């Protein structure tokens, strides 16, 4: 029998490098050409001296100045970040139990619940907002329920305030948090929790000392995602927010599609982008540390 030819170590390394190159090339080329370059073009747009959509020229910082030096715009920015954080943490609070339970359910029972989580994402925002107007309206479901239960005697104004906007935003992006949590808890071996229970730890202690530390990557990833999605939202605040609740996303939309001052819109967009990048970077740095050490400590 002939001996099969054994490739040298060097050959194998070259082959491996080649393979790696082939694997990462598509994403790198695609993203560079269709994301990085257009963003660079947009950055250039934000420095144009002019207030027109296209065909600008020159270089000026005044659009950034207009945005960053004006108390009003800064307060809208602060409000947007506030909504982002609130939305992220509220959805963590109510999404974690759901994500956890989904991870621990047997596949059969999990399936329909998962569909219930994902399907709201397919509904057009226009009709979702209609639904919420019905629920939160003065003659709406919630008011009727509360009056029926005798909690209040006259309908309350539930719409057009921060809470209403937050509720709709949370509902809109909650599936992302649930799925992030679920995908990380699935990786935590249930044996660990059973072991803790055997050692007389109650739910809370098990959660705090076993589940939580291992779930941090998924939690951070979910928080980041929900924050970014909320901060960039513009249709929801446009449809359900009142005059008092403004978010940067709607301002950008206004500038782009109504006022047609694209350089200013681009400047606002880049400030928003820097913020979301910063948040992502912070989370990722923590995540990267966890990812490497998590892999090493992964129980199989």
């Amino acid at each position: 029998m002939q001996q099969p030819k054994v490739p040298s170590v060097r050959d194998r390394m070259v082959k491996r490098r080649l393979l790696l190159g082939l694997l990462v090339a598509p994403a790198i080329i695609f993203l560079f050409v269709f994301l990085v370059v257009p963003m660079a073009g947009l950055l250039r747009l934000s420095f144009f001296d002019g207030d027109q959509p296209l065909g600008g020229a020159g270089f000026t910082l005044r659009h950034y100045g207009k945005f960053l030096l004006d108390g009003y715009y800064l307060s809208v920015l602060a409000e947007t970040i506030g909504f982002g954080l609130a939305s992220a943490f509220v959805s963590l609070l109510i999404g974690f139990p759901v994500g956890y339970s989904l991870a621990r359910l047997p596949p059969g029972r999990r399936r329909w619940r998962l569909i219930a989580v994902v399907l709201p994402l397919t509904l057009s925002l226009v009709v979702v907002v209609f639904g919420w107007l019905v629920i939160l309206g003065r003659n709406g479901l919630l008011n009727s329920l509360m009056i029926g239960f005798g909690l209040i005697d006259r309908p309350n104004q539930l719409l057009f305030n921060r809470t209403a906007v937050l509720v709709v935003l949370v509902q809109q992006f909650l599936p992302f948090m649930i799925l992030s949590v679920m995908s990380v808890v699935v990786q935590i071996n249930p044996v660990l929790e059973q072991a803790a229970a055997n050692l007389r730890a109650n739910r809370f202690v098990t959660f705090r000392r076993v589940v939580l530390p291992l779930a941090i990557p998924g939690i951070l990833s979910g928080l980041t995602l929900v924050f970014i999605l909320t901060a960039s939202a513009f249709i929801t605040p446009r449809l359900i927010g009142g005059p008092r609740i403004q978010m940067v996303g709607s301002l950008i939309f206004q500038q782009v599609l109504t006022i047609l001052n694209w350089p200013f819109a681009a400047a606002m967009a880049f400030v928003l982008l820097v913020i979301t990048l910063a948040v992502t970077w912070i989370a990722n740095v923590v995540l990267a540390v966890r990812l490497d050490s998590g892999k090493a400590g992964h129980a199989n």
Partner: protein
Amino acid sequence: MRTDAIDMGMKLAGAIIRPLVYVTLCLPAAIVIVTSFTAGESLRFPPEGFSIRWYQAAIASEPFMNALWSSTRLALIATALSLAIGLASSFAIDRFRFRGREAFRTLTLSPLVVPMVVLGLGLLQFLSWMQLNQTFTGLLIGHVLITLPYVVRTLTASFVLFDRTLEQAAMNLRAPPWRVLWRVTLPLIGPALVSASVFSFVTSFGNITLSVFLGFAGETTLPVQIFTYVEHSYDPILAAVSTIVVLVTLAVIAIVEKLVGMETIA
């Protein structure tokens, strides 16, 4: 005693929060679906009477049905491309140690960080410079861009969980690499592939902003059609169309599950 109280407390909290979450998620959808069966003229809840007239109107409506087909086609192709690029990328991220691995990972996730309006504007400018802004390709590029991060996220998470010993066993049995890939690796990440494609399909299908900027005559997507519809009209056909969308998505999920042969969405 105290530990029991905390235990009970958490159990109770969970039992209350979970159903509440499901209700909150599904309530607007439920309202819309119920409203779509109204026999009356206006979008109101509770609906007046019961009728399927608005479904008949929706199906008879050429713009909506064309848009539905447009959106479905676009979402399917975008998902396929995203899966291809995303699988290659997440495989690389998981199996290879190379300099800039973390940067690469961030790059693949970066479209998520860019606000959609910004993306739309930037792409419109860029694609029109490349003479691609009035083509299906241009719209497709935009949709692959926004679905890729979800695919990569889902797949990299699944790869971390992956049990390599199974692959090693196959290789010990003298199976060539491509065979290992086809018969061991891919089936094992099957659930994640399904999950990634569902995520991707839903994201592409529901996207309004990008499609507004990059659409062109003959290729209006459904969310845009709905969005522009309400600028000038307002009736229950919207509810009917949205419900049809939900059904279409359910159908696609069912088909994908059958194809992959998995019972689960992990």
